[in-house]
């Protein structure tokens, strides 16, 4: 074999953290980071980001718009551990302490193209009323030791959470060499457009 096939496939994600709906809160900012498996590595772009603080729009929608760009490229050899984007939204409480307003997670879409995702967000809860009061009073809401916890299933059974708000994300996904390595993720019709030859010969 003179020219061996590709040894990795690439996944390019760009897009943005567009906006959020948090009916009760204002002046929020968000952080994002990616959680991915062992066989994945970022090759370009930022894995983590922290956005500006935004206030609610004055119109009816009361949207919090960040339009915070995401641009990152991963390489991998194994679809196991597909990247997930973890979002955590923070904002001030009545005393002006920064407290967490929501955690959320979503997998980067598998198929190439443009995807819009709306993620429901949640926060961990205190276990008792007294603790709730204490944490409110102290200005320290319970929060995850590591936001990446929300991308894992392990250890979640000990927590209790409350849902609040939504964040809308936009992804543009481009993949390279996935099909060559035998992973078929795209929709059927996109195959015909990108490849002029009949699909049988494309696979191997």
């Amino acid at each position, binding site marked *: 074999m003179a020219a061996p096939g590709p040894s990795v496939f690439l996944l390019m994600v760009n897009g943005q953290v567009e906006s959020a709906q948090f009916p009760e809160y204002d002046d929020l900012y968000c952080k994002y980071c990616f959680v991915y498996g062992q066989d994945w590595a970022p090759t370009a772009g930022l894995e983590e980001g922290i956005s500006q603080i935004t206030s609610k729009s004055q119109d*009816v929608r009361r949207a919090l718009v960040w339009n915070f760009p995401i641009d990152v490229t991963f390489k991998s*050899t194994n679809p196991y551990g597909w990247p997930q984007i973890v979002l955590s939204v923070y904002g001030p409480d009545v005393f002006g302490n920064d407290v967490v307003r929501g955690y959320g997670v979503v997998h980067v879409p598998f198929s190439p193209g443009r995807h819009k995702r709306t993620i429901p967000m949640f926060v961990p809860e205190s276990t008792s009323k007294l603790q709730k009061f204490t944490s409110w009073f102290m200005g320290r809401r319970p929060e995850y030791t590591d936001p990446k916890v929300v991308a894992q299933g392990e250890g979640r059974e000990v927590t209790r959470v409350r849902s609040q708000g939504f964040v809308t994300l936009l992804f543009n996904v481009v993949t390279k060499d996935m099909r060559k390595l035998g992973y078929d993720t795209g929709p059927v019709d996109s195959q015909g457009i990108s490849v002029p030859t009949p699909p049988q010969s494309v696979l191997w």
Partner: protein
Amino acid sequence: DLLEIKAAEYEDDQEHTKKQANIFMPSSSPVANQCKLPKDKMPRILEDEGFYVQRKPKIYIKTCNKMENRLLKLEEGKCWFEESGEIMSLPSPIRQSWNFRLNIRKESLNPALKTIYRKKAVKYDLESSIRNKMEGQREMYQLDLNIVGLQFSHHPLFNQEQVLCARLLQLYECFQNRQQQNLPHLLYEKLKALTDATKLANEHSGINQLTRKSLQDYYWQISNTKQLYDLEREKDLSLLHSMLRTWKQMKSLRKRQGFTSTPIKLQFQREENQDQQPKADSYKVERSLSRHSLLLEHILNKQTSLEVFHHGGRLPSWKGFRSLSNRLLKRQNKLCTENNKPLSYGKTQHPDQLFSERVPDRAVNPGVKLRGREKSAKLRRRKGFPTLLDSLSLEGHLKVYLIFRHEQKRRAKIQNNDKQVSCTSVSPLQLDFKVMFQQIFNIQLIYWPETICLEVYEISKRTTLLAKLYLPLPSNAELKSKTVLEYVEFSCDKLVIPAYGEVGSNVPFLLEGNGTEELCLLTSGKLSYSLSWALDENGVPLTPMSQSLRSAYFSVLRNVDARGVPGIPWLINTQKLFEWANEVRIDPNNPEYSDLMEFIMYMKHKGQDIPKYFRLEQLQDEFNFVSEEEMKKSKRFQLLQLRNAGQLDVFLLQHMPLYDREIPDLVFQEYESQIEKDVSISDVNSITAQRIHSANFLKKMRRLIMKRIVKVSRFNLSDIVTDYEEIMSARSEIYQLTHAICKLVERRRKLKPRRKERKKLAAQTVSHGDIKILVRILRAYNIPTRKTTVNRKQKAGKSRRNIRHKETIKSVASGELLNESQIVGQDTVHPFVEVSFQHTVYQTNTSCGSHPCWNEEIGVDFVSPGHDYSFSSLSKIKDNIYINIFDEMMIENHEDHCLKSCSGHTYVRKNWLGSVVFPFSALLQQSEINGTFQVNIPPILLGYTWSKTYVSPKEDYNGQNLKECTFLNIFATIEPQIAYITSNPEPDKISSKKCKFSDQIDVLQRAQIFKKNCKAVFPNRRITTTVFNSEGIQILVTRYIKALNPPRQLLDIFLHDSNATLDLIARFVSLIPFMPDTLDENDGSDIWMTSERCISLAIGNKEEHAILLCNFFLYFGKKALVLLGTSMLEGHVAYVLTQETDEYLLWNPLTGQCHKQFDPFCPLQSVDCLFDDGNVWFNIQQNNTPMAVHFDYSKESFWKQLFPKNFQGIKAQSIQPKEIIYSDTNKSMVEDIKNRIERTLKCKMMEWRPKQPTRWNRQCTSILRQMLPKLELGTGTFVSSEEESEFERLLQFYWVAGFPIQMPYIDVQSVIDAVYQTGIHSSEFPRTEFALAVYIHPYPNNILSVWVYLASLARHQ
């Protein structure tokens, strides 16, 4: 056109609001009834009128109102409301309907959607093939299949009468079955017996409680049986009813159509019922019974009286048809020979079998009557037939194919061939929908047939398959001689549209008799056949199972049964039989067992290729991507599996390579070698081989046993959610609250800084580079100083030379210099400390004097292998943290020929003085190590002496002489603190149940409960009550303790000095190599070997060492216990506690050191648990440091004991052997090792000094060699006088620094590492010479004490 240009998606706000306006929002206010109902109508509520209305599902009123409002907006919305004004709704959302069978869709199903049924897992036909091999001579078997005939119970060509007839027949059959069973009669008998018994009991009533009770029981039974009886009678009756009804329908049908096409006839017989009057029994039960029967009689009489039996009157009306049908009939007669079979069923009706003992005379008649009827019935049928003329011509021919399947085992691919063996001739359908074949097929077999399949075809215009019939294989006993016809039923859901007045199949039709009944019948029928094994000419049955084998089977069963082994179905559960046979160890030569052995042999032979599983997922292979072998071959898959199992520590890839070719084979080799190291030990000496072997053995055993222990690791809330721990308990919460409130009023500036707790970090959130180990070196005490004598000489020499040089310049100053140097020389030592971890070395500044103070903090970088910072992988790290004290020595080298202008170089050399070592795991466990520790100093430090100024590290301590000890004050911690996750191991219960040697379960349970209780009180204290032994069986720790003999040789050395002997024993134990166990395994489910095992393998963990030492002490009659606790430096430890007359001694089995209870430098930090051969004690004193603990374990307020004083059954047999037999160590092997070590060390020394030449001083080496053997047992003077003098001579020319290192022998590498740690090779002084001597002192059982004496010599100038 690759690019698509589109405007950005944008939604106008105004449009958005407009959209909002368009949305209809129904109000949720209730709607008045007038709006919902047609005008001028009041709601009608059915329930109020007394109708039963099913309860409707509950809907919220708001929702309901909304819906109503919404419906009212619609034009036709009102039709949704019921008369009551509510929305129409069903009581249950599930629609109850029956839409099965009728396949109205004309177009055939999409072929892709068709269900294809695959065969279930194939059970190979091994028995038969094996049998062939076993017997050999007879290989052909023969099955005789006689296909007799076919009778349709429904056929598309049936007319309505025939349908009714079939039904009647069915009912009759059912009735007959019931008659045979005769349940009512049985129940009646029972009732009778019960009433009799009651009567009897009543007569003797009032005797006692018992009879009353039984009487009650009788009554209860009577009423029960009565109910049953009534029920049965009811059933009989209803059956009769339906028969009667069908018959009536038939009759009316016949009447209507004007002919009969079936010869059937139902006859009811009236019965005399005068005799049926019950005897004058006064019992209530009987009475009710008889009333019932009377009632029945009454009904029957009425019905029978309505019957008209005679159809004969109708005969003449059919005469007209007769001529028409003549021709056809003749042909029919020819075809059907069996036609004449009487099909009319006469019936003697016994409505009440109860009283059938006296059958009235008239009941016998029907038989006679029947015969008479037969003829007329036949006639009638014939006459009636012609109307079916057209349809008869359509009647096809049936053909039965016999299809015989069997497995072709020999072929590579296992496949099922459907082989058509033969087919019957085509037989025509007869008039009464019977087909006669009467053909016998002889099927010769080689393999065991899997299925025998008959296919029924109908040939009319084209051939269609009606049904497939699978015949069961006959049992071996069924021979040709006694063939009985068997019936197989079949049915076919083919759709046949009726054409000429027939009924069709799978098409609904109305039965004319009672127009409401709609029927839909499927073609169905019965095939009669007989299947049996054939006999050959000699009358030997051609069955596959030989008689001899069968007898073997049975005799085995008999024998086995006789021995009372549980689990009789051997033939099913052979596995158990093998186990049993193994257990009992039956004598294979005993003729009594011969057949059993034969059977076992046979089953073993057979079992070779029978899969031991029953495949439930028949479709599994459809879902497999690739075959199993291919999967196994895939290297990538293997690697993934290994990684998933967490066993890929050696080869940690960041990425899994995509292709197999990119994966080096090396990975697997490494992994395998990790498992089994004993591949490459061919060139190693036997003792080393033994070491490697035993280490591997232990690892393997550990892994095997750990497999059987289920571990559940759990996260705590505090691991996941922060902020929790601070508000953990209510008390601290309130404190926090008040604190927070106070903070508001508090003054800004705080004068008193308060200590803040460090935040704990969950291990799984830590990433690379986050962790550091902080080691703070505070100060040291009593560091040895350079020997003044030597120094003086050197200094003197040096100064003399200096003087000589500088005489002309400054003579006065030289004197001062001399004085000064002498004063300084008193206490000259320039110690510094090196901290090394994971091959990285950190160094403090150099201080001065023998009580230096550094107060330096060293941040040691920490890298977890594989960048995995989860707790489990952290706890696997076995690296030690070494803290070495060195003396920095500056040596000025003056070139002789050089003038004063060139002042010469200053060379730095460091001399090792001692070290403190602790494992990383201890740090991880305790989160900090803080205190003053005794430095491990070699017994002799050449060139150094103890400092004259003694400073005690603890002011209040004035115990034994500690002048010859060095102490170091350190503080070490991991930054940030890592949370210690405890895992809850749950040992599987089977392991304890299965074993024979284990303690009784209740004792184990008691131990578990005890442990749990103790943990509840003091969660941080260690308690071990049960452990696993090397077979994975859970046993009590107390069973490890038993007096055991130490090696004879050791006892002989100090015959009279018992204390010295004890020390020697402790030393012997400490020389057994120690295997560190990882933290997470350590928790509650430890595996301990017996002391004998420990000695013979020459390896052991902390507890095994302690147990061994304790057992030896017990041998001397000492009061000794094993103590579990924690030590500052070592983490979890096991010590041995001995009780002397006035004090308690604590022995560290790993070092052989003995501490008094009140020794402040005893590293033991907590005393948690004690155990001996009889009991386990848990420390429940508040303070558990050894100094504060009361060791009097008999006091229950201080020590909680596992067993109460006189508890039965704890004196279980110890698992230790009676005595240990020691073997001598092979001297030549020891010599070999010694030479190896020496050679390797010399090579290494040169390797470590790549820039300088390494010279060996032979003279010094020989002196050291002589000194070394004395050190092992050296209690008094180390050096004899002549050696001293020799040394003196040497010291004339050299400055000598050196020390012996002693260690147990594990492997060569550990010796090399220890030498490397001392840094003796790092001397840069140009003409340094080295001396090295190795000595190995052998103890029994290949336990060796290695001494390495190292010295570096610097020539005086």
